[in-house]
């Protein structure tokens, strides 16, 4: 039995008379302790999917089971890291993390809560910047705070919504490294679902990668297992023979899936295009012929 089991998730958003079908009958299962990445293009509905999986928004149909139990609302054992950090600008880094610890561990004393927040901020290398506010921190540092906040609540489930999407390549690499280190250092089993548009990032971190087609009516493709030894490094992914093979295989799987989906889309579009009558007057068409 998978730890996270989501079946037949559909979601559409209505704005006025237009209804956008974002997800259609999406199913996914994630084993306990697994790191799964969902990779797809921008705007394909990835964020909607992770918001449903984490319980931030509700699906129209289908259900999400965690550890066998159907979930409603945000799971108390889950933490979420957003692409845009989502720190509260009126609080310092420490206060942001403390707020999360306070909500997750109300039975702890204030001192314990504070110590926990400080410990995790130190773990992500912000020991000296704890009292700064988000607007005094760089993008990378803000995301570190967000990651510290997510881990400080000691989650069993971690949802990462393009966590490094807004960062430059170097900062990205640093933080990816720290994420793996943090997961192993804390020594707890964390099941992680990450949304990404970066294949290298997914390869570096994941046990499995699932491609997602372009929306509307986005669906998931067949998962690709990343059977590379850990710890992995970015250099190794570029140079090692097995890593390159794995990469090629995954790229092929992703593009095949996406192409197939695009072809289906093109067909539906072509069929739709036949229906409206031509705008050219009938007599001029005869003249052309």
């Amino acid at each position, binding site marked *: 039995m998978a730890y996270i089991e989501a079946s037949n998730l559909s979601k559409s958003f209505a704005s006025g008379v237009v209804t956008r079908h974002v997800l259609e009958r999406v199913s996914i299962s994630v084993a306990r302790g697994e790191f799964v990445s969902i990779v797809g293009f921008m705007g394909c509905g990835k964020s909607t999917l992770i918001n449903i999986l*984490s319980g*931030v928004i509700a699906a129209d149909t289908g259900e999400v089971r965690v550890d066998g139990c159907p979930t409603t609302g*945000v799971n108390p054992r889950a933490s*979420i890291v*957003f692409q845009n950090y989502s720190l509260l600008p009126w609080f310092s880094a420490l206060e942001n993390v403390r*707020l*999360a610890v306070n909500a*997750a561990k109300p039975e702890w004393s204030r001192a314990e809560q504070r110590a926990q927040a400080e410990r995790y901020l130190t773990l992500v290398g912000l020991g000296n910047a704890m009292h700064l506010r988000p607007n005094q921190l760089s993008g990378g540092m803000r995301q570190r705070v967000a990651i510290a906040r997510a881990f400080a609540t000691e989650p069993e489930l971690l949802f990462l919504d393009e966590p490094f999407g807004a960062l430059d390549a170097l900062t990205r690499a640093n933080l990816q490294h720290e994420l793996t280190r943090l997961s192993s250092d804390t020594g707890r089993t964390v099941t992680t679902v990450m949304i990404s548009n970066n294949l290298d990032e997914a390869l570096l971190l994941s046990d499995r990668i699932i491609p997602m087609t372009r929306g509307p009516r986005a669906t998931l493709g067949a998962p690709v297992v990343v059977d590379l030894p850990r710890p992995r490094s970015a250099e190794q992914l570029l140079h090692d023979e097995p890593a390159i093979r794995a990469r090629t295989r995954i790229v092929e799987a992703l593009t095949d899936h996406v192409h197939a989906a695009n072809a289906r889309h093109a067909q539906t579009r072509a069929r739709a295009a036949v229906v409206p009558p031509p705008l050219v007057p009938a007599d001029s068409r005869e003249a052309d012929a």
Partner: protein
Amino acid sequence: MVGIVLAGVVWWVASVYVTDLPSPVETWDESRVYIMDPWAKRGEMDQGIARLASYSLVRVARGFLLGIAIGTPLGFLLGVSVTAHRMFDPVIQVLRPISPLAWLPLGLVLFQKSEPAALFAIAVCSMWPTVLNTMSGVRAIPQDYWNVAKVLRLSRLTTFTKVVLPATLPYMFTGFRLSLGIAWLVIVASEMLTGTPGVGGFLWQEYNSLIYSHILLAILTIGVVGFLLDRMMGVAEARLRAL
């Protein structure tokens, strides 16, 4: 500075052509006693200008506090609840443009005394900017912050104190600033109608006594005090935004 001098010149030229309008110099001569001895108390209305202004200020402060005490929670309610907004928005739009001169008689009917009637008029006229700004402040809270509250599973109270209130505070303060401005506008009208001691009451009494220079003194006082109030709120607002 040049602008002030120019305005003075316009005033002086106007006073040459309009017989009843005292010139700046005449106004100064006749008002000197009120300005040089600002805290004097010679009679009910015959008091130093600072003392008169302080009566008005206290009245404004009470009416304003009453107004924001009602307006702020109302603004939060309208910002959070779509239903409440649908219900009350038409009411607000109808009540908002009503002049203090219209509210005051109603206040007198309701409370039978001039002082509570004045407070009522000030509160009811000045609260709208606070209501509307607080409301739009709550509505302008980015979805991100609501998500934070949701993801951290903050309690309602914590969500309010740690997320909604700090996010809305700058908007609220803009509302307070506008409300205070209106409260100060209303004070004069209400004092004129009720004849209570204060800058507005003084103005009306001097008009009835045909001492026109004192009208000008009262007008200038109202302007300067209003300006200072707005500046104070402006500074407080800027401090708040810098947080």
